[in-house]
């Protein structure tokens, strides 16, 4: 019995013209390449532009270290929110959560006199708990994740404020190992190293494990994912829990950086984190959130803002940035994933007059 390979398939239009020269083939491939590596290009541009504009300060070691250190918190949060985003869910409790984590890690040492190790551990466990609660709200009670996490975030904010009584927690001193978390090893800020390490782990999970792939599969088509035996509650739940734990970790670093417990420090991280993850979705794997894209995006945002600051821009420029980038990022990301579908539609010629219940004919099927 021979297997019949399709004979009557009308061939698809070629994806690019026959390259007559390298130049032409590059030109033809440009849109695809730009999509894939555009962010890296943008990053290079940002670095070059600001180095040229403010050579003495921009590339200076102090600026570099400060930027990397501070932006590590954003980077961790962007990586954290990537997980639910992969399944098409939002976690808007990030900002309030990292604020509460920061308050707790300081407050538990100052008010409850716990050792820094125990404080950190508790904050991480709280992160797990927050993630679990979000997971239950979304998968068990089927509350739209946008609403559910907005609500849970607000509750966390309430807890933060209750704990601090509306005041700043100012420790007289903090143990060396704790404050040393934002120090350096071999000249590289430790938080940045942690970000890199976490990125590697997340990359491996998302790109090289079956459950990780399951997140993207759910994000693509929840219904189809169910029919391939993927357990939606387990995967989405794990995504939220992972997000929660990483957010807790980010809070620990934030606390170490600020050395105070301030309830209002935290909420402003939500948009940059989202902007980073969504802008990252426009690159490397256009249309879906991914680790490398997120990292590059966060770097772009970080250094662009830093550069602008070096040039003396006012403090509110960062809001301009975050808002603008968010709009651009979501717009581009949507465009990138729609491009695939549009390209597919263009390849399958459909007569607009085609009556719907006609049996498909060889001519109609591209």
């Amino acid at each position, binding site marked *: 019995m021979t*297997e019949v390979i399709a004979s009557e398939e009308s061939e*698809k239009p070629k994806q690019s013209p026959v390259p007559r020269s390298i130049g032409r083939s590059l030109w033809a491939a440009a849109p695809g390449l730009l999509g894939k590596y555009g962010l890296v290009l943008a990053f290079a541009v940002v670095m070059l532009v600001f180095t040229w504009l403010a050579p003495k300060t921009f590339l200076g070691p102090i600026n570099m270290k400060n930027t990397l250190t501070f932006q590590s918190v954003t980077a961790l949060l962007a990586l954290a929110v990537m997980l639910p985003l992969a399944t098409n869910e939002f976690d808007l409790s990030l900002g309030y959560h990292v604020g509460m984590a920061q308050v707790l890690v300081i407050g538990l040492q100052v008010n409850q006199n716990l050792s820094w190790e125990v404080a950190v551990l508790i904050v991480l466990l709280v992160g797990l708990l927050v993630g679990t609660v979000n997971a239950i709200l979304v998968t068990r009670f089927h509350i739209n994740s946008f609403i559910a996490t907005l609500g849970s975030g607000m509750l966390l904010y309430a807890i933060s404020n209750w704990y601090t009584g509306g005041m700043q927690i100012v420790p007289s001193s903090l143990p060396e190992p704790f404050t040393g978390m934002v120090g350096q090893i071999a000249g590289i800020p430790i938080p940045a190293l942690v970000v890199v390490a976490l990125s590697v782990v997340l990359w491996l999970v998302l790109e090289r494990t079956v459950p990780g792939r399951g997140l993207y*599969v759910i994000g693509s088509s929840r219904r*189809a994912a169910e029919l391939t035996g993927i357990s939606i509650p387990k995967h989405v739940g794990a995504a939220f829990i992972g997000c929660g734990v990483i957010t807790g970790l980010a809070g620990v670093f934030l606390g170490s950086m600020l050395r105070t417990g301030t309830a209002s420090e935290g909420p402003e991280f939500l948009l940059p984190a989202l902007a980073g993850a969504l802008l990252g979705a426009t690159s490397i794997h256009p249309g879906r959130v991914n680790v490398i894209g997120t990292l590059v995006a966060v770097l772009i945002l970080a250094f662009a803002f830093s550069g602008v600051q070096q040039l003396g821009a006012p403090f509110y420029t960062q809001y301009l940035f975050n808002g603008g980038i968010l709009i651009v990022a979501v717009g581009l990301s949507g465009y990138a994933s729609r491009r*695939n579908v549009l390209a597919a539609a263009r390849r399958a010629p459909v007569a607009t007059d*085609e009556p719907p*219940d006609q049996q498909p004919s060889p001519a109609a*099927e591209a």
Partner: protein
Amino acid sequence: MAGPALLTIRGLSKTFSGQTALSGVDFEVLSGEVHGLVGENGAGKSTLIKIVAGIYEPDSGTIELDGRTVHPNQDKLPIAFMHQEVGLVDTMTVGENVALTLGFPSRGGLIQWGRLWGQTEQAYAQLNLRAPDPKGLVGSLSPGDKAILGIVRALARTPRLLVLDEPTAYLTLPDVKRLFDALRRLRAAGTSTILVTHRLHELFEIADRVSVLRNGALVMSSTVAGTSPAAIGEAMLGRRLVALDAAPSASSLGEVVAEIKGVVVHGAKPVSFDIRRGEVLGLVGLRGSGHERIGRAICGDEEIERGEINLGGTALSSRGRHVGRRLREGVALLPADRQREGVFSGMTISENLFPSAATRAGGWHVSVQGEKRRARSLVERFGIRPPDSSEIIDHLSGGNQQRVLLARWFAEPKRLLVIEEPTAGVDVGAKFAIAQYVRGAADKGQAVLIVSSDFEEVAMLCDRVLVFVRGATATELAGKAITEEHVAMACMGAGGHASRVAQA
């Protein structure tokens, strides 16, 4: 009593990019009659209706209403339509849905709700039907009530002609009776109905005349009294229906893989049958006949109200939906709706081939090289074009996407594979290829269950066929008896033939 001609269509033709949908059709509906319009899918019924509705413009031909030439795409005509997808808004009330066609009574720009509810009651009273609560949400109505609402709505503007497209598809017998009573009242009042249907016994119950389309041409027009289901069937299919041979004895089929015992899904009647290893069994019927749900119930995607499904001797849990568990037991589903339930848009062919633990051998680790190798062999085996496994699946044609889905489930042998509408929206070459894979898998001992409403597909693929009519198994066909014509006649409930079928 039928009166003078109401709608006269002469020489209607329509072509769609090289494909002739209608050629020179002469069709006439008298006033005060119920006129059945019958034909296979693709025969041109839908096109004809859409031209009368003004959605398409005919290439040639004339349409006359009461003797005057009209142009449906320009003139407003007293013709009301009810399509298969009734077009009701579930989240709005009955009254609002009626008002969507009748108009919202208003004064000074504000809606007069009192008059709106009254308007609803009136619309139902016109047909001597009891209205449901006008303030109730349409979403909470039964399919039968929804269909009635669709018709009441269509009739509220007192049209001269009513066109119903498969109105009884999802109705229960009592609902069908209510519908037909309403149609009889209309007829007495002089309104005519064009009834597009596949269900011949219903035709013989309510229609006065019937016209048959085949391949875009009108091949028969007769009074219902002057013809028979067999004659209509032959006109539809264009072939003489030969007497059935005795079917060949059951070939070397393996042991029973699944027993379905008295399974009741969603208010249908109890269904029982067996599936054996190496057998390609077809569950076929017109849309809404209940076979679709049984297939889903076996896969764990639909709840079972009563009865039991045994896989290899062990009864499966009947509560709730257990797709994951069934997959672990070796039962997989290839759904009909590729776009919404099968394909992972935005992901590569490779990722679509191996999306989850149930679709791959090995553990939780993804080896890029290993996956590439396995993808390449599957792409070759199933003739997927373009053959690059890192291609995004949206770039593939429908036929190739279907091949990817087949490869996903056929790659590793399953205990039972349930496939819905396997060759829908797929080109001829791919249809044959798919038939080969199904046959090949069955020859290797795989049990395959095909769930379909496509007679040709079923005739091509299956060893044995169970025909569903109105939620219950009506007929069983086996071996040589499975031809497109016999399957079609059995599904349409054309009496005589249904009783003379051979068993394996």
